[in-house]
């Protein structure tokens, strides 16, 4: 039986539109992420995380015969990065996500518990 681990996946969607940002605004936006992630790190909550390029492929069909190029969805639905955090439970993981600067720019964070299969 899979059971819940203490790891949670954050999926970031949308957020600031970089095409419309000035260099100064970009730096300020980055500083906010620094601050938030720095706090997660210093509290030992940060486990892993990376941004995702907006390029990519989607495969489907028999043996993945249908291959389409990204981007695949509208900007606000595209996953721009992920993070894995350690938290006591889903409530704490959700509370931690509230500090994310993506909300300043109408983005979303999807919080998903990572399942852990014992014995594997």
């Amino acid at each position: 039986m899979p059971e819940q681990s203490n790891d949670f996946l954050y999926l970031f969607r949308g957020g600031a539109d970089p095409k419309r940002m000035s260099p100064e605004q970009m730096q300020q936006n980055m500083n906010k992420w620094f601050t938030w992630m720095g706090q997660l790190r210093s509290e030992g909550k940060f486990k892993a995380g990376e941004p995702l390029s907006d390029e990519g492929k989607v495969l489907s069909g028999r043996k993945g015969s249908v291959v389409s190029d990204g981007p695949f969805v509208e900007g606000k639905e595209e996953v721009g990065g992920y993070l894995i955090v350690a938290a006591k439970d889903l409530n704490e993981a959700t509370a931690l996500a509230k500090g994310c600067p993506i909300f300043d720019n109408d983005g979303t964070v999807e919080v998903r518990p990572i399942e852990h299969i014992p014995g594997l």
Partner: protein
Amino acid sequence: MPPDEQTSAFEAGPLMDSEVTRLVDHLFRREAGKMVATLTRILGFENLQLAEDVVQDALLKAMQNWAFGGVPRNPSAWLMQVARNQALDAVRRQQNFRSKEKQITAFLEHRSAAQPASVHFEDEIRDDQLRMMFACCHPLLAREAQVALTLKTLCGFGEEEIATAFLTSTAAIAKRLVRARQRIREAGVSLEIPAGHDLSSRLDAVLQTLYLLFNEGYKASRGEDLIRQDLCDEAIRLTTLLAEHPAGNQPKTHALLSLMLLSGARLSARVDAEGNLLLLAEQDRSRWDRAMIQRGLAHLNRSAAGREISEFHLQAGIACCHCTAASYEATDWQRILTLYDILVETNNSPVVALNRAVAISRVRGPEAGLRAVELIPDRAALESYYLWHAVVAQLHFERGDFSKAASHFQRALELTALTVEQVFLENRLRACREKLAAPGA
């Protein structure tokens, strides 16, 4: 992270809390200006827009990567390499670069091999910025387009920020920039530091634009505080760059730089702790930036090298009188008046004449000041200017005519939209009313 780069610039240190603050203020903005200048030289001035897009993408990559992975050891080199890669991609993709692809590729590759810290490299970046400065201030462009283009390409300002500085809409600035770039393409303006016969007049155009940029920041009557301080800083940075280069190292450049430094040094003392505007007489002179004043005086010395006395020389001389006076009372008003007397001969601006009238009033009293105000040609243009009424009001106040003073302070109050000025004028108005209500008034 760019796939084909494994050089030292990409080595990220682990992200520590303290590193967050290590990223220099305005780093993105500064680097944007430098990168656009360099890439535009390589791609050609007609491809300015492409250079700007490439730089925007590089900054975006930095914003995304650094937030997760940490700041690289050499942020500037990291940015330049990413921008270089983006530029190479663009060159390979676009048909119109085919003819010079080899040349551009070789150049971009050579550039990445250069040691970022070397003097040679620094010189190249400086020269790139100077070429861009002369191009942005090309006489073909209207002055306001020159200023907008300088802020966008050389200073890395966004359209919205430029609009805020000039109290206009982002759309208006965007349109202004599009037209300017189009003009540049059509006329085939090239990126070069002018030499020989051309240099003097082209330099004048650059100095005028930098002066305007500084003044936009300096004058208290518009825009947001933060942006205004940035405009002054950028004007000083660019003028310093110019003054240190053989093409710009001329007495008038040093005079302008001196004027900016001697004025900028007093900028923060113009308001008190509550943000209220202070008269020169009320300013706490210990808050003036002494180091900046020293720099200003050094450039004033260097400006005296030639025979030419530009308007910048005179204005810097006036600023120098204020900066070197131990107190308001100790100000050498006679010398200031002499400088204004020379200034009004070449500059017929009513504002300069108004300032001269103030100098007269300090030397010969408020009555003489008011007579000088009466004699200003084009007075009609001044009467819708809040400062004219504020000056006239103050002179009436000093000679004891509180009723006339009150009516002019009232008029000045109606003419300014800026809160700090309104508060200041309301206080003056209250002082008039108190005098009028006092027994024996």
